[in-house]
């Protein structure tokens, strides 16, 4: 018994610590776990909703929520034009290691009021942080200009969006937000992250996956183009020639009759 007691105490202590660390838990879900891209796909709206379970002294005090949805990351090249001998040409280019094809952030209050810079750096929450740009400075002098341009261009076409006050708090433990997926999204595994914050520190988080897939005809055409490129090319040509012939024949018929 004597030997067992310290072990039990240690275990209890460990459990106690874990329990203290897990005093807050975010439980959340998405209104759908997969988005099907069909022929008439024109964007989609995802509802993210959840609740915070909390025990301990802080329970019941106000907290903040940040929801991010990120598309698959891919390498991107950003080019800049400059005037050379009177004409505008691409002079500089920067390769960005990985930038999400889609990124949406929704918060319940203004970002700088609820998120500290260290937390942002640690968890890559804001858009500039979500873009991985290692070794940028070695490529050009003003590398930031290029990431800013990337963000500006993608915000303009709706691929990157920030919705401060997008999260609604329904009573204390419940929250919800709508994330709009634009019609020009590409397929892949999208990641939804939900952060619960207090005093600009993240105290709990939750991650979920959203599967964006082409289905039906879209899927079939895409697969054929990738896997049977020769057949696909010939099929495209056959359709083109048949259509050309068909139109010609139809017009002759119309004119003839």
């Amino acid at each position, binding site marked *: 018994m004597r030997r067992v007691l310290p072990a039990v105490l240690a275990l209890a202590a460990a459990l106690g610590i874990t329990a203290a660390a897990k005093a807050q838990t975010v439980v959340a879900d998405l209104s759908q776990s997969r988005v099907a891209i069909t022929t008439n796909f024109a964007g989609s709206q995802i509802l993210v909703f959840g609740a915070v379970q909390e025990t301990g002294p802080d329970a019941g005090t106000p907290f903040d929520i940040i929801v991010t949805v990120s598309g698959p990351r891919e390498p991107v090249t950003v080019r800049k034009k400059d005037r050379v001998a009177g004409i505008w040409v691409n002079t500089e280019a920067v390769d960005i290691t990985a930038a999400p094809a889609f990124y949406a952030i929704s918060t319940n209050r203004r970002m700088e009021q609820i998120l500290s810079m260290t937390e942002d750096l640690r968890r890559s929450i804001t858009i500039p942080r979500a873009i991985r740009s290692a070794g940028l400075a070695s490529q050009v002098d003003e590398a930031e200009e290029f990431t800013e341009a990337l963000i500006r261009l993608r915000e303009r076409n709706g691929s990157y969006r920030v919705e401060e006050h997008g999260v609604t708090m329904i009573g204390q433990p419940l929250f919800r937000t709508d994330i709009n997926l634009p019609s020009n999204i590409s397929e892949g595994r999208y990641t939804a992250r939900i952060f619960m914050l207090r005093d600009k520190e993240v105290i709990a988080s939750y991650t979920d996956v959203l599967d964006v897939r082409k289905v039906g005809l879209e899927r079939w055409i895409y697969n054929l183009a990738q896997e049977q490129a020769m057949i696909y090319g010939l099929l495209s040509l056959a359709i083109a020639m048949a259509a*050309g012939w068909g139109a010609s024949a139809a017009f002759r018929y119309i004119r003839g009759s």
Partner: protein
Amino acid sequence: MQIYLPIAEVSVNAFQLLGLGGLVGVLSGMFGVGGGFLLTPLLFFAGIPPAVAVATGANQIVASSVSGVLAHFRRKTVDIRMGFVLQAGGLVGAAMGIAVFNMLKALGQVDLLITLFYVVFLGIVGSLMLVESLRALRRSKSDVPKPYTRRQRNWVHTWPLKMRFRASGLYISVIPPLLVGMSVGVLAAIMGVGGGFIMVPAMIYILGMPTKVVVGTSLFQIILVAAFSTLLHAITNHTVDMILALLLLIGGVVGAQFGTQIGTKLKAEQLRVLLAALVLAVCGKLAADLLIEPRELFSISESGGHS
């Protein structure tokens, strides 16, 4: 009506694309140009990624050219023999052009060189044509009976290896058409288009072919060039979007039929004035892009689909 394109991965308005295809089809049927030089920039504007626009554009050109050429076949305004000779030269030229293209690519700035190429070439061809055809138009309007002159005998008629091109009413050496086909092939490969808008003036002014035959013959040889280029894009880059192509070609084939109709109602000189104006307009647009400060200096390209 919004349609999601499986390869381009964007959602587009179907009617807008039908209209676009139709517009290019009309021009194609009228002038015997594939319309690639017009369609591709218009597709960029509609939000299609450049690589997909170029590849799918080629596929649509096959459709509208087939539609147009069939109308010309019935009217017997296609010089098949000339088409094949031009094509033979074109294949050699295209192979050379691709070599040149890769060389330019190694030097960097290939886009800029292409644009400069376009501007200079279109500028020269367009202005020469405009001046010539306006003069011809004025001559035909003033009712002075044209003094009968034998068709000009330039250097084209003095070379050996003569061949009879019945549809064109020509009896000339095969070397000039081969050379014309070859140089257009080089240009087409470098600039990524069928080359109709260069081929048409070359056939009129260098080979001395009658304008009516030129349009059909040009369409005939564009079909092969565009089909080859479609297949190449589909196999190497997987960038041909079948749904996009379908939308464009429905508009295109109908447009080409109307274009052919309009073309036959116009006088040869009028047709040439209009083509010259079109060529100069495209030239002006490209020149303006180079000279005017763009509103957005930055551009993004996904490294995967590098164009």
